[in-house]
């Protein structure tokens, strides 16, 4: 893993921590957008190491976490149908719907299968012409190209037994929504490296200018994240608000054009509900009318299924950075990874699960060195 070792190098990490401490003349509040980054930060203890200089607020970029409850309920409904093979990425299986989850649907006889690529689901449809194969297409711009490719492939193959339950969301509208919020505390962002690998960073430039916040496109390894934080702190100290790219080994300004074209060919921008946050205008992707035949919501008449979030779950506040997971009254009590009230406690990328699993609330206190 030579390509990874240098981004986990303890000497580099220590040098960056020293740089952050030397640069910051006052405490700053940054948000990492992506759940993968949250995972690294909490897993490596980065937040503790720089706690006096930077408060890290964990953003909404966990695809499992922001998928709205009613979309989960729709998935559960369609997965329970005897003719359906329901396919999903693994970490959606434990997400609780209003009454059950996909694991329990499977235990009661539903044919629910984990796939690693949406193209595997297309292949299943090809091999099982007598069954209906449904793929749960969730995620940010990162997973959208592969999911678009799956629909396109099914279209080319003329498959009539493949459909997708779409719950795609996009990052820039979420950043706007956070910055527009009257109680916003976030002063700078680490943008999600994988999302920007697809989309580039041009669309973040108007955000940085309009809201006067630095945005640093950042990777996922400890050294990436520390370098992203150091770059954001340098901008804040200098009064700059630009889009910078830390993740140069993967991201270009214009992103991956063929992937973007694939997204645009299959999907269009729609209003999308975010779990715990509400509807954000023009914040999601839905199938274009030309691909309605592949829309599981239409095919299985799922639009009527509506849901109400459990009142005790404050996932929305966590996802908007208003609440640290362990400040939630339900954290570790009614809400644990074994019995999650909301999605952030389920996914490995969810802020609540990261705090719970890596034991933030239970670690003995030590003074930072």
């Amino acid at each position, binding site marked *: *893993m030579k390509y*990874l070792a240098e981004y*986990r190098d*303890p000497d580099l*990490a*220590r040098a960056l*921590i020293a740089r952050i401490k030397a640069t910051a003349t006052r405490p700053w509040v940054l948000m990492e957008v992506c759940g*993968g980054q949250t995972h690294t930060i*909490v*897993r*490596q*203890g*980065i937040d*503790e*190491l720089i706690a006096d200089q930077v408060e890290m607020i964990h953003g909404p970029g966990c*695809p*499992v976490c922001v998928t709205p409850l009613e979309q989960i309920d729709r998935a559960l409904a369609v997965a329970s149908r005897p003719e359906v093979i329901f396919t999903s*990425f*693994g*970490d*959606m*299986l*434990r997400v609780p719907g209003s009454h059950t989850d996909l694991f329990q649907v499977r235990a009661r006889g539903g044919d629910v299968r*984990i796939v*690693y*690529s949406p193209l595997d689901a297309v292949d299943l449809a090809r091999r099982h012409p007598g069954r209906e194969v449904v793929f749960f297409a*969730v*995620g*940010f711009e*990162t*997973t959208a190209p592969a999911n678009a490719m799956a629909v396109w492939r099914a279209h080319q193959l003329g498959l009539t037994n493949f459909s997708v339950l779409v719950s795609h969301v996009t990052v820039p509208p979420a950043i706007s929504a956070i910055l527009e919020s009257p109680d916003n505390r976030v002063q700078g962002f680490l943008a999600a490296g*994988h999302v920007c690998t697809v989309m580039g960073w041009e669309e973040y430039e108007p955000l940085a200018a309009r809201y006067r916040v630095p945005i640093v496109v950042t990777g996922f390894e*400890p*050294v990436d994240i*520390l370098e992203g934080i150091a770059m954001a702190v340098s901008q804040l100290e200098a009064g700059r608000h630009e889009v910078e790219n830390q993740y140069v080994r993967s991201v270009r300004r214009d992103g991956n054009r063929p992937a973007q074209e694939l997204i645009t060919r299959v999907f269009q921008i729609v209003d999308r509900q975010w779990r715990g946050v509400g509807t954000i205008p023009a914040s999601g992707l839905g199938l274009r009318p030309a691909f309605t035949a592949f829309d599981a919501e239409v095919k299985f008449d799922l639009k009527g299924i509506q849901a109400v979030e459990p009142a005790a779950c404050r996932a929305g506040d966590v996802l908007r950075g208003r609440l640290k997971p362990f400040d939630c009254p339900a954290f570790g009590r009614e809400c*644990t*990874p*074994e019995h999650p009230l909301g999605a952030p406690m389920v*996914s*490995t*990328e969810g802020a609540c699960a990261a705090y*719970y*699993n*890596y*034991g933030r609330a*239970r*670690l*003995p206190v*030590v003074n930072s060195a």
Partner: protein
Amino acid sequence: MSDGAGLAGGLACPVPLGATAHVLLGHGSGGKLSAALLRERFLPRFGNPALAALGDAAVLDPPAGRLVVSTDTFVVSPLEFPGGNIGTLAVHGTLNDLAMMGATPFALATGFVLEEGLPFAVLDRVLDSMAAAAQAAGVPIVTGDTKVVERGKADGMFVNTTGLGVQHDDFRPAPDRARPGDAVLVSGPIGRHGMAVMAVREGLAFETTITSDTACLVPLVAALRAACGDGVRVLRDPTRGGVATVLNELAQASGVGIVLDEQALPVPGAVGAACAVLGLDPLYVANEGILVALVAAEHADAALRTLRQHPLGVAATRIGTVADGPRGLVQMRTTIGGRRIVDQLPGDQLPRIC
């Protein structure tokens, strides 16, 4: 191994098995097909005086010492994977469980649930592996049982093994004997078995050279015992749930804390890369051929040296230390100097989205 009838290996077959290359329901009937299955396939491979007597139970003269018994049931899918099969696992797994209690195994019993339609070719390979593994360990399979269930009611085959061993007072590793200051050692690279099985099962679309580490740890434990005696406080084979789960169990059983050093964890490059792609943590991935040893501080160097001198322990490493608290908690010093808790998982690890 060929399929169908005529595998008698010198034994006469009174009832032709017919042209079938697969297990039939009749093989579990208790009638002639069952008898033929036993004579054709099991006895020639597992043959020993206790089994050959074909009584309802084996009669043994146990060696002196305290009797130690362990049982385990194996349900792996796929049945065969790079580095082994369900048969090697079934023998190694139970022998290793005995070894982790400081016991010297002297007999194995086994039970099979076969699914109608299982190819004899697969069964033969599994039985060959079991026989070879048992013979290599010098432990006879003294009694067994076979059932056949309808197609669709078992995943090819399930195998149970029960092991018998003896333990002596001078070597009694146990989960509750860890003390502050003990060294935490692992005898080899972590995560190989789980990722080898996963790569086959999930048909991962990347090339991988990972093989299962399945191995009998009895000789490795014997070497440790000779070098350190009861200075070896705790032994565990980190199978299901991996190293992290086992250390949590030990910390709770002994009422101690454990502090791991992330940089010291021996994660093979291919395992680390596959885990990174799938969003899994190698600390929770199953192993079948390594042990975790908690060793009194004064024996730590000798234990590590001994492990490294043995072919199964060349990559042995010290990964942490037992602390006096917080009780029941496993912590990790991260590569970059941070800290976190290494908790038990609520269920299986789930591959993540992106």
